[in-house]
């Protein structure tokens, strides 16, 4: 006998089914909410970075045509602080410039000094590199001071401006006149992408270029050390190593190493590479070695995972037709695992690219990225900084102009990270094999 009251119509949901369906809907909703929250954070972050960082890519300049005589050049070169002399020559020339442009404005030399950035260095470099321009009228586009730039960007207004020796309210009247006369304009700040670090009183002259090169040389070291070492270690552990206590210990420790805070590798780098091996301080070579230590576990773990994902049937088939163990690895397993290995390596590199903490201890944070290397050896060995270290340095400086530069630096760093991740995705998609 069956109790027919237990059976209900299939078209009507019983209470338990309703409950289950509702639970399922809620479960999905949680997921959507989680994604939405993540998306919101991402959007807020992107918005803040772009908004704060974009000013770093524009630059405001004053156009000025000057004729520098040979005597003035010789006189300037004979002084101790040559750059200041060059700047003063320009300021002295300013009234002629105004007459030529038909602009009439009251100013004094001190006000002009406040309006201009640290331009002496650029002028000196120009005349030393182009001696033919001495005696010829030459047009310069001179960087304005960070507060005047702030005025153009709306960061500084007459209301927020507190009269200080850096900028006075009356100076802004001069700025208005010169802007209307077309003598002050904005332009794309190439110097930010190609330039070097600058002193704390010269935010306008700061650029990220030199530290990009520093990062590049570090990444070369990391790539050429951690890829072969990591792949060799994983192949041995995965394909050849006997299963015993010792290899278990090695495996556990590789996982542990991956979780070690990066500053620890910095301390290790300081004591081993600099104090013991006497490698130079602040050098990208040492930075690269330290980051190699940090990246190795990541690469080994991902390489082993991709070796594991190659089906055993491939190895068996190779061995079955008489290949040696090494042939089966190098001819079959490794090529099939390559996309995974490359992806892991690039992710590891991207991680290393964004790392600051270990660089603190080996002297790459500070006023370092001042010179472009003049060759490969110099690139590895001469003092240089790295992108994240440069950003960290800028963020700590007093002038708000550097704060903008730090955000701009973050954009450049993110572009590089996105590029590397895109390459990783491309490689994975192109070479991926499914079984």
């Amino acid at each position: 006998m069956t109790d027919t009251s237990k059976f209900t119509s299939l078209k009507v949901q019983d209470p338990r089914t309703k409950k289950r369906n509702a639970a399922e809907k809620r479960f999905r909703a949680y997921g959507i909410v989680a994604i939405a929250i993540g998306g919101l954070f991402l959007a807020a972050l992107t918005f803040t970075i772009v908004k704060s960082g974009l000013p770093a890519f524009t630059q405001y300049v004053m156009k000025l045509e000057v004729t520098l005589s040979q005597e003035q050049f010789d006189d300037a070169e004979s002084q101790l602080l040559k750059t200041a002399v060059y700047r003063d020559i320009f300021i002295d020339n300013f009234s002629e410039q105004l007459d030529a442009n038909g602009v009439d404005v009251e100013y004094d030399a001190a006000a002009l000094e406040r309006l201009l950035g640290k331009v002496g260095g650029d002028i000196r470099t120009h005349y030393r590199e182009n001696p033919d321009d001495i005696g010829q009228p030459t047009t310069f586009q001179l960087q304005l001071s960070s507060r005047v730039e702030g005025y153009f960007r709306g960061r500084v207004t007459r209301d927020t401006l507190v009269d200080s020796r850096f900028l006075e309210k009356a100076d802004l009247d001069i700025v208005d006149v010169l802007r209307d006369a077309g003598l002050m304009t904005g332009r794309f700040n190439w110097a930010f992408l190609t330039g070097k670090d600058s002193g704390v009183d010269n935010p306008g002259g700061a650029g990220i270029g030199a530290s990009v090169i520093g990062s590049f040389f570090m990444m070369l070291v990391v790539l050429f050390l951690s890829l072969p070492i990591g792949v060799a270690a994983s192949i041995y552990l995965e394909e050849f190593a006997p299963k015993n206590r010792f290899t278990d210990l090695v495996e556990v420790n590789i996982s542990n190493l991956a979780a070690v805070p990066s500053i620890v590798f910095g301390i290790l780098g300081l004591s081993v590479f600099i104090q013991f091996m006497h490698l130079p301080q602040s050098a990208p070579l040492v930075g690269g070695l330290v980051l190699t230590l940090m990246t190795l576990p990541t690469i080994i773990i991902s390489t082993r995972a991709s070796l594991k994902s190659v089906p055993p049937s491939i190895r068996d088939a190779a061995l079955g037709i008489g290949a040696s163990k090494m042939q089966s690895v190098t001819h079959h397993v490794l090529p099939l695992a390559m996309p995974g290995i490359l992806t892991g390596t690039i992710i590891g590199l991207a991680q290393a690219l964004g790392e600051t903490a270990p660089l603190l201890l080996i002297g790459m944070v500070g006023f370092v990225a001042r010179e472009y290397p003049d060759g490969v050896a110099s690139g590895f060995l001469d003092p240089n900084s790295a992108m994240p270290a440069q950003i960290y340095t800028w963020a700590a400086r007093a002038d708000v102009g550097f704060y903008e530069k730090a955000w701009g630096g973050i954009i450049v760093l993110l572009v590089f990270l996105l590029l590397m991740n895109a390459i990783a995705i491309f490689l994975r998609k192109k070479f991926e094999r499914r079984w």
Partner: protein
Amino acid sequence: MSVLKMTASTLAIAAISATAATARENVQIAGSSTVLPYASIVAEAFGDNTDFPTPVVESGGSSAGLKRFCEGVGENTIDIANSSRPIRDSDIELCLENGVTDIIEVRIGYDGIVFASQIDGPAYTAFEPADIFNALGATVLVDGEVVANPHTQWADFNADLPADDIVAFIPGTKHGTREVFEDKVLLVGCEETGAMAAMMESGMSEDDAEDACIEVRGNGITVDIDGDYTETLARIEANPNGVGVFGLAFYENNTDSLKVATMGGVEPTTETIAAGDYPVSRPLFFFIKQAHIGVIPGVKEFAQFFIADEIAGPDGPLAQYGLVSDPELAATQATVETEETLDVN
């Protein structure tokens, strides 16, 4: 195979060049984060104006810099240590142990330490050392008794100050600035309020009383800032009642968001500090390893450039940025010229 070859050759090049290029060409400097801005200005100008490569300037604090300075002589040690305090006997002992016997002390100028708060915040415009001590000291004098600090608002002990909660962001103990804050503000305030005399009457020795005077309350009322002044500024911006300790140059760069308080009725400016009227200031130094002069190119030239009248003088770029120039600069120039070392024995 080509990957392997490339790797091998890169490694070989790296190894060869590492041994060949150990001769360092740039001056290496480390130390005080207060001196760092000035040193970076000079380093940039030195690179722009001479044919020497730009020196590398690292931060890390006065004590850390002097420790690295005293690690020994040789290309792998720094040439110059920046410091916001004079060299101590303990530093010199470490130096002597490691063979750093000839040290040239160079005083570059003075730095003012100021108390500043949010520009739209409560009217913290005039402090006396006694006010700071009464607000921040761990034990203070109330009605003739030495008690654990009971004050929660500034107006509790001085009716002229705003009735707002006491919160102060002060430099952490690894900063040279902390020492100046303790000696020139807390200790002075302790003496002025009579708390120190009362402590000594109650049987404490002078040293113990001094230690008790410079002890701060902690507990969220005083917050140690171990980072840079930018961190202090961020904390002040988030807390309208907060009072922060800054260097004069940092304050002057951020006058749009900070207002400064007078100390003892004197407003901190380069002029009042140079004249000695503003009480909270300290000299800044760098120390040169004489053994490196003539070995590392540009060490002496950099030091001479640093303290030249055009740079460290009253109209130079350093004073422009906020350094109070040293009236006795000529004597310092002579010290560097003759390489006169400290008497370490």
